[in-house]
């Protein structure tokens, strides 16, 4: 009734899946890198800075994808009290934070040649900054509560509230952006991307996604080990207690 059979099933599946995902990620990264850096033509307008797009867009995409993954895992864990979903959400959060950080920094590096400053309060970049704070808050909540089960449910509540908040933040930041900077900036994503740039871009996005899958599976396995260690520690504490009292 309380047995969590699937962690064992998950452990066996992930044992097979993780190396494959890791290998795929490595190959795709290599291909995407070489193609993007060496063969893709410079953009007529942005020149070679367009190559930054090959690392910026995938990390921005992964920051949002990881967030969606985390929020849906949290929803599953909150509704069906599915502790494997807890573990998935916790495993994804630091990765999402890493990708979000990359998205912000590469975005700034891309922005400098175009806008003349590293940071511009562009609607998209600002939304990513808010998401960045959300990730830190989410991870901090996990770390702050000792009991992993309680932490899981508290983080799930936060993730669900955060998920409701995303469209509101998106709308308010866009609103705020048009309010203070009527001058329209060069839209970051060029309208129609030529296939010579689009293909390496898609390869890099696939590479980042494969890497995310490999890492999240690995972190989930680690989290399962941590929970088992936690349980062993409690039961040893109790076993040494109970027999002593007879």
């Amino acid at each position, binding site marked *: 009734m309380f047995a969590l059979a699937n962690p064992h099933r998950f452990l066996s599946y992930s044992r097979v899946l993780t190396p494959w995902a890791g290998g795929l990620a490595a190959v795709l990264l290599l291909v995407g*890198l070489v193609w993007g*850096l060496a063969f893709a033509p410079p953009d007529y307008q942005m020149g070679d800075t367009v190559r930054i797009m090959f*690392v910026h867009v995938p*990390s921005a995409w992964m920051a949002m994808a990881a967030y969606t993954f985390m929020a849906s895992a949290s929803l599953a864990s909150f509704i069906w009290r599915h502790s494997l979903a807890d573990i998935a959400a916790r495993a994804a959060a630091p990765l999402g934070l890493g990708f979000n950080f*990359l998205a912000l920094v590469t975005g700034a590096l891309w922005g400098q*040649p175009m806008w003349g400053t590293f940071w511009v309060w562009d609607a998209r970049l600002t939304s990513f900054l808010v998401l960045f704070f959300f990730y830190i808050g989410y991870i901090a909540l996990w770390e702050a509560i000792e009991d992993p089960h309680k932490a899981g449910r508290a983080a799930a509540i936060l993730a669900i509230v955060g998920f409701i908040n995303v469209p509101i933040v998106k709308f308010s930041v866009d609103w705020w952006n048009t309010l203070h900077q009527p001058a329209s900036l060069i839209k970051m994503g060029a309208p129609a991307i030529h296939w010579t740039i689009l293909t390496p871009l898609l390869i890099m996005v696939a590479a980042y996604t494969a890497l995310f899958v490999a*890492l999240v599976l690995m972190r989930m396995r*680690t989290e399962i080990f941590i929970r088992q*260690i936690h349980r*062993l520690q409690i039961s040893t504490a109790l076993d040494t207690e109970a027999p002593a009292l007879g």
Partner: protein
Amino acid sequence: MGEFFHMGGYGAFVWPAYLLSAGVLAFMTATTLRAYNRHKRLLHHMEDGGPEN
């Protein structure tokens, strides 16, 4: 090859972006692997060697 590194004058932005991306991805992978192995060993240790040591 110089031309390649010059990146049409934007080398100062393209290369840091790539180096940083590689660095962060490597860091994420490394920490994930290290945590995995450390806890795996700790768990086996606790299951076989018993809790005291």
